[in-house]
């Protein structure tokens, strides 16, 4: 039975599940009524969903972040999961806010989109606090199954169907690989709990490769590869550009924000708690290098807006992987978390802008040219975000990259830091090219500038304020991430040994 503390810890999840069910039933009842048009109703559902997510943020926020193992140790709540939950819910709330005003427009007819977003968010909440291989897999599947449906949600579009199918096949493949890794680990150790795996890995006979007494390297590698698939790191990124391009812009926004947070949080937890022996480190090292290089080189050649964003996000995943590719040090984890939060703000901002221009025409980068002349506020916002992505000093993106490279140097991964700086300099080229496109090039055709709706404007204003003004007062961010990293390392007293780079 759950005791009171465990039940209180699960409140955000319970809230999301209940709201999902209620919205689903409500939606079905209203959708069956022929008198009402569908579109405004999507708006209502989105609005209700948004408030539910905001309420969940409050629920997580007021809860005391103490370490609780709940339901036979399959879920673990501590300060790390606590803050990651808030990051995730903020990301979801931002995405839904972009959707609210789109409810009435052409792209989003089905209210189920919102229901699926809420359902996958609850899956990701469980994923963040998972502390058992099985519950982790189940939560991950709950999340990705919702995503398959979301990717294919625009049924009359060829691209969207293709994206859904591709995502489904490759996602299922990666899940299979992941599950195989889990089964290998279970087969050789007899436990699936993270803490128990941790204590088994901790006493491994160092330097004696005896397959019968350790956690098998192949199992760990399969798990890491499954993770790399999910975060679109480089050797396993093939699905990402097509899927992101084919899906609806709003869905793409959700794809590139929320799962990154949840899966990075889970990945840090797993790799840090279960497998101290760092067999996985070199794999992440190469994934990080590859992601940075490919993200940089491939984004340079893109003409389409969404593909550009995807490659830039692959590059950013590379930068984030630096955080723990060089060894799970405190600085590394902290910089990863800072990077994630800033990436969240920047990506929400970029997608807010793209959602705003979408009704006009937003397929190609060249079409952005018109905004420099006709919509100066939009152009300034966009330029600031691009500068931040590129890592120009006073903006948040610089802070994130600087701290990541700093963490890499601190743990001795000079190669990663050096390469990160080089790719970051190269990436300035194409981020600034967009700014040039907007201000100095003549657009192919003049369009009516987009109408920024209210919710979208609020999101843009908040994120731009965060990006530009963060450097004035960074200590809360550093304190919170430090606190999170402490929570991660302090749990069960095992993690400290993992900090040996």
């Amino acid at each position, binding site marked *: 039975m759950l005791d009171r503390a465990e039940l209180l810890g699960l409140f955000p999840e319970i809230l999301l599940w209940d709201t999902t069910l209620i919205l689903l039933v409500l939606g079905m009842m209203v959708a069956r009524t022929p008198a009402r048009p569908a579109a405004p109703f999507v708006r209502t559902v989105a609005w209700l969903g948004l408030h539910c997510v905001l309420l969940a943020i409050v629920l997580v926020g007021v809860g005391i972040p103490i370490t609780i193992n709940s339901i036979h140790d399959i879920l673990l709540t501590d300060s790390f999961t606590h803050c990651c939950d808030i990051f995730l819910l903020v990301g979801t709330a931002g995405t839904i806010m972009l959707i609210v005003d789109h409810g009435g427009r052409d792209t989003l007819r089905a209210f189920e989109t919102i229901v699926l977003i809420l359902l996958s968010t609850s899956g990701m909440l469980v994923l963040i606090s998972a502390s058992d291989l099985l519950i982790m897999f189940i939560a991950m599947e709950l999340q990705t199954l919702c995503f398959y449906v979301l990717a294919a949600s625009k049924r009359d579009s060829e691209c969207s169907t293709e994206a859904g199918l591709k995502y489904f096949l490759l996602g299922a493949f990666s899940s299979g690989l992941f599950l195989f890794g889990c089964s290998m680990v279970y087969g*050789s*150790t007899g436990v699936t*709990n993270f803490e*128990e795996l941790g204590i*088994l890995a901790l*006493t491994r006979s160092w330097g004696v490769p005896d397959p019968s007494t350790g956690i098998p390297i192949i199992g760990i590698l399969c798990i890491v590869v499954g993770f790399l698939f999910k975060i679109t790191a480089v050797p396993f990124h093939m699905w990402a550009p097509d899927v992101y391009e084919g899906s609806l812009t709003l869905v793409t926004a959700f794809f590139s924000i929320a799962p990154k947070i949840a899966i990075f949080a889970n990945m840090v937890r797993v790799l840090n708690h279960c497998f101290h022996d760092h067999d996985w480190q070199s794999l992440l090292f190469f994934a990080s290098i590859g992601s940075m290089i490919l993200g940089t080189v491939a984004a340079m050649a893109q003409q389409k807006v969404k593909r550009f964003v995807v490659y830039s996000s692959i590059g950013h995943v590379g930068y984030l992987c630096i955080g723990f590719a060089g060894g799970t040090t405190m600085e590394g984890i902290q910089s990863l978390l800072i990077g994630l939060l800033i990436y969240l703000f920047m990506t929400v901002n970029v997608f807010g802008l793209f959602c705003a221009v979408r009704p006009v025409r937003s397929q190609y980068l060249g079409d952005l040219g018109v905004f420099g002349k006709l919509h100066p506020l939009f152009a300034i916002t966009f330029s600031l975000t691009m500068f931040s992505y590129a890592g120009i000093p006073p903006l948040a993106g610089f802070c994130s990259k600087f701290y990541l490279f700093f963490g890499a140097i601190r743990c001795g991964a000079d190669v990663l830091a050096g390469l990160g700086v080089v790719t970051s300099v190269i990436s300035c080229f194409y981020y600034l090219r967009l700014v040039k496109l907007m201000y100095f090039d003549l657009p192919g055709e003049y369009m009516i500038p987009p109408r920024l709706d209210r919710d979208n404007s609020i999101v843009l204003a908040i994120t731009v304020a965060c990006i530009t003004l963060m450097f004035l007062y960074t200590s809360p961010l550093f304190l919170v991430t430090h606190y999170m990293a402490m929570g991660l390392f302090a749990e069960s007293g095992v993690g400290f*040994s993992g900090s040996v780079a």
Partner: protein
Amino acid sequence: MASGFGIRGFRGRCYDLFMDFRECMTHCTIPQDCTELREDYYECLHHAKELKRWYRIDKERQRQEKEAAAKGAGGKEEEEHKS
């Protein structure tokens, strides 16, 4: 297996050994103190040492049987074996 739930509903086969190991890990100062308990647990899981021992016993017996057979057949083969 280490969870306490056995396949037939009783306590799992290696549960006690895992609990000993876990108990040790919660109290020890360095993890290497509990290596032996950990080995016991892995032995319960995979029977690697037991199987290795059986294999060696079996091999030794085969060798002796072969030797005896060779001795019975004649001295010439025995010489070859020794060299």
